[in-house]
């Protein structure tokens, strides 16, 4: 049964991390329907939210492969707990003197905000779950959509059962980004100084 699965990943905020993760998905032919990336409240940690399409086995395998990456600190399967999710869309719709009022009325129903007003177009911002965003786009379609940009879904686990980095790793900032190796022990080679130098 192919379906959409919502997964969040906490990653080190380092170059190539996005490539590393998307290349993993690409190579194994896991289809990403949407992807949002941003910094977290914790310096050095970014958060990605994916929507992966596939059956349960594919999603499980994708998560296990993600967990193997050195840059991945934690993987959250939103299918396991209740969550809130949101998506934002910027939508530019054509207007005419006749349609202007109707368009604005629909926008009001969706609690869309007008973020730009042109002579022949209005640009709206809508935030909501995926269904609401999709419904808004469908309502606007008959008027003539000029451009849209959707952010992709973002999600957080509900309540105190949080997946914030600090709680996931039980130790806050230092623990999350603790280097793989502890501080160096002075080694024997070093005690002798730099060969040929000292």
């Amino acid at each position: 049964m192919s379906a959409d699965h919502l997964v969040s990943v906490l990653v080190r905020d380092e170059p190539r991390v996005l490539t590393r993760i998307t290349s993993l998905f690409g190579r194994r032919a896991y289809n990403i329907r949407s992807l949002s990336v941003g910094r977290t409240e914790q310096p050095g940690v970014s958060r990605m939210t994916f929507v992966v399409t596939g059956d349960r086995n594919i999603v499980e395998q994708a998560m296990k492969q993600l967990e193997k990456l050195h840059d991945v600190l934690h993987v959250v399967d939103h299918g396991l707990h209740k969550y809130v999710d949101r998506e934002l869309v910027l939508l530019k719709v054509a207007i005419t003197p006749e349609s202007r009022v109707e368009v604005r009325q629909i926008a009001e129903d969706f609690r869309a905000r007008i973020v730009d007003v042109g002579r022949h177009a209005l640009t709206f911002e809508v935030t909501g779950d995926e269904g609401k965003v999709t419904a808004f786009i469908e309502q606007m379609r008959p008027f003539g959509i000029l451009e849209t940009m959707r952010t992709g879904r973002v999600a957080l686990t509900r309540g105190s059962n949080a997946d914030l980095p600090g709680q996931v790793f039980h130790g806050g900032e230092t623990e999350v980004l603790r280097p793989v190796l502890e501080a160096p022990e002075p080694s024997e080679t070093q005690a002798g100084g730099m060969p040929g130098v000292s």
Partner: protein
Amino acid sequence: MTPPNGAQALWQTLAAHGVGTVFGYPGGAIMPVYDALTLFPDIRHILARHEQGAIHAAEGWAKATGDLGVCLATSGPGATNLVTGLADAMMDSVPLLAITGNVARHLMGTDAFQEADITGITLPITKHNYVVQEAGDLPRVVAEAIHIARSGRPGPVLVDIPKDVQLAAFAGEVHGPQAPPEAPAPDPHALEAAVALLKEARRPVLMVGGGAQGAAAEVTAFARAWRIPTITTLMGLGAFPASDGLWLGMPGMHGSVAANRAISEADVLIGIGLRFDDRVTGRVKDFASRASIIHIDLDAAEISKIVRAHVPVRADAGRAARLLTERAQPLSHPEWTATLAEWRTRGEHPAHWGAAQAVRQVVSRLGPGDILSTDVGQHQMLAAQLARFDRPRRWLTSGGLGTMGFGFPAAIGAALAEPGVTSMVIAGDGGFQMTAQELATLTKYGIRNVKICIVNNSYLGMVRQWQELFHERRYSEVYLGDSNPDFLKLADAYGISGWRADNADDLEGAIDAWLAHDGSALLEVVVPNEHGVFPMVPAGAALSEMIETEPQAVPGGRA
């Protein structure tokens, strides 16, 4: 005297980790590292004749010792020549550190001379990779890379160092090695479930993979304590002794009749340190279709990736085997044992002269501690079927990637790691020519314990076999016999002695002379063109659909 720089910090860090031998090839963007090497007389650098030779030698070192292999290359073409070896090491879980030079930081991304985005290129074929941005980071990054390469499921890690970082002043401290993290303890409930299944089993089979090479003693003790008939995969050969009465051979496409039938008939199959490669499973939906499957692996992502495990056990092979041995109840399955004994006599290669006979004669001369490397193809499968390994890490082959050109340089790496044993390589006439230039490496370093055997059938034999069986004998571009070199003259040109034989009697004498020769030597065995490797499970077929013996000989030579 040169002031301390990043390049020196690199060598210091390697030395602090006990790295004593590295394989490499210099070039413009790695010159500061080679310059600093002159300050470290205790580190032995082996100059290969191609970066692919260097990395396969490092793999051979790692596979034979279980320890880290290290190789060096310059930027651009040097680095891209490592790609095959990195992919090979990734597939076969080889602990490997590859160090590449790159152009100076201000040139990176400008398409500078000999620039390639090697970290980008190797993202999917390394366990992890780095570009070092500051000389001060070098010791930490290299120590971390070694740690990642060695810990958990081992693999290759690449560290790319821009030339100006190699030259930058360095005044920091180096990192020594750290103990790898303790492997996760197996879930006691999962172990309990495994024990319960084993106790009830009537037709149990144990499958041992390459992940158990470091846990051969524990796995063997487990199999013996429970008295479970045992199969070793291509990568697992030697992780359970072939001389043990419980051993059934190798499974899969060219596996033994006994192993493949045992899998098809088993009611409980316990796999340890393996990943159910498609060459092992045949058609997956029919693989072990009567069995409850217990899968023990350190890498959680391997469990239920191909074959769904009824009892998944994420654990280190040795630790899991020890715990299962503690719970041992010797099983008694007289009917199963009798059936397996009957199957064991099936699918033998005929005794007439051919590649199988040649390989049988050659591998029978391996001593218990000797190492056998192979290239890829018919000779590899024949060697896997016919050699008998009682110890782990004596069999070096490119399993997952199937890399032609692997065997010979891998044998050089193993020979340097263990100068006291014979490091034998069996290659085909095709694969040997992919890395034949490493004959120079033997000569340069006076390596005396590499014995090269080329099984020459004038074809890319395995491809030819498939064309014979599945492409109506249209032998498209697989004939090499009209342009193969005189292998003895080729060896002679590098100062290596050689012998040749084309029949069983002459072969015995040639083997004697070849092995008795004081130094590395080459043996060319000329065999008939059109012999195949059997048993064989056709690609996409089920293990139960195997062709046990060679069909009637096909007429003609080249089509």
